[in-house]
């Protein structure tokens, strides 16, 4: 569990402001700091990792005091068990994947390097150099390196924002899986609402150094309570006339949806608008994603050992 109170004067794009935040993250919880760039999100992570020192406040992790301005406690960065993943991967270019991860591991670690690499499905990349890997592969290495020290807290600073959408979705699942496996408190910095919805148990929305909203993603992003259970966020791409109604094309990250609108609703929205696509849980139908292609006859033939018919 992380408990922190952090204060520091910072300089933003529109002048100086004071970072002043109070928060708690329980073990097993994934909390997101959400907000515009320059709001102080990265600074908070750097303070937790010991890369930057607050002027006031304290940081306590699992009851251990890492920083306390009044008691003059300051645990050096290398003694803090923190896993940190940056947007820029930050791998050593002159070391192989295996060497990068091994370098971060503690010598006394009971975990084997091969097991760690296997965990992320990158064992076959062990002897490759970072420059020969894709962005998604490099970030997998960085993630494994971050957890190789068995950290008490996992800090992720916009780890996926440089990746394409499908890689991003894959890695979101990967991060969630590792977060659950580790059971540590995880803090994710993100400015992508869809990512926050998918990953976070709780959102702290930060503006100019202050937390101005906190709660579940739904509570923070949709203040009014809303009954539909089938809802995704998306962006309007186009609205076209279709007979006397209108057809809105909405992109939701991986899928393109179409929504029929009456004339009044069609006038309320324009391309580029962020929207919530909502339906009642009673409407959507589930279909198997892959229809079984084999016929009963073919199956009988195969089971009889006659062979496979192409």
């Amino acid at each position, binding site marked *: 569990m992380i408990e922190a109170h952090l204060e520091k004067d910072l300089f933003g794009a529109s002048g100086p402001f004071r970072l002043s935040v109070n928060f708690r993250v329980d073990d097993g919880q994934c909390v997101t700091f959400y907000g515009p760039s320059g709001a102080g999100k990265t600074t908070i992570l750097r303070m937790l990792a010991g890369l930057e020192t607050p002027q006031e406040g304290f940081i306590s992790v699992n009851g251990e005091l890492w920083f306390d301005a009044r008691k003059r406690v300051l645990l050096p960065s290398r003694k803090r068990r923190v896993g940190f993943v940056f947007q820029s991967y930050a791998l050593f270019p002159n070391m192989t994947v295996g060497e990068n991860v091994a370098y971060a591991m503690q010598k006394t670690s009971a975990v084997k390097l091969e097991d760690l690499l296997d965990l992320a499905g990158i064992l076959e990349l062990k002897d490759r150099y970072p420059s020969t890997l894709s962005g998604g592969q490099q970030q997998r290495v960085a993630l494994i390196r971050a957890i190789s020290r068995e950290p008490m807290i996992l800090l992720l600073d916009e780890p996926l924002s440089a990746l394409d959408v499908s890689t991003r979705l894959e890695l979101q699942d990967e991060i969630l899986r590792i977060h659950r496996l580790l059971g540590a408190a995880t803090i994710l910095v993100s400015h992508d609402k869809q990512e926050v919805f998918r990953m976070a148990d709780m959102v702290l929305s930060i503006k100019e150094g202050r937390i101005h909203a906190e709660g579940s993603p739904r509570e923070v992003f949709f203040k*009014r*309570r*809303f*009954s*539909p*259970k089938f809802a995704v966020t998306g962006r309007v791409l186009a609205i076209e006339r279709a*007979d*006397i*109604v209108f057809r809105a094309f909405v992109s939701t990250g991986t899928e393109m949806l179409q929504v*029929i609108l*009456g*004339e*009044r*609703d069609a006038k309320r929205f324009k391309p580029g608008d962020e929207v919530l696509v*909502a339906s*009642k*849980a*009673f*409407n959507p139908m589930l279909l198997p994603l892959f229809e079984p292609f084999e016929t009963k006859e073919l199956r009988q033939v195969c089971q009889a050992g006659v062979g496979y018919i192409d």
Partner: protein
Amino acid sequence: MNRVQGRILGIEASDGVSLVDIETGGGAISAVILETPESSEYMRLGAEVYVLFKETEVALGLDAGKMSYLNVFDGKVSGMRCGRVLAEVVVWTAAGEIVSIITKRSFERLGLKEGARVKAVIKSTEVALQGLGVPS
């Protein structure tokens, strides 16, 4: 989307599914939703809510007969627009204006005209609620 403001009159809940009755000022409207008083703070008697339902979920009839629909509103046709496939009909009811989008074929079969008496029918599973606040 149709939106009518109302106040929660009654809640019947079982296993996370609720049948909610909302007084709109022009008759009650019922909604089946996956919220219960335990799961959601606006699910309280007296709470102000918006009742939301899509134009395409509103059926029209000259008489409602014996059917499973819980929500039947008497009204008068106050406006209409016809396309090649679809028709939009605006119905004035005691609960306010309700817009319905039906096929042009049904529209012609019903022989709807401005001022004609008509019933607007909405399945309760197609009605959504949006909480506006709980009375203090």
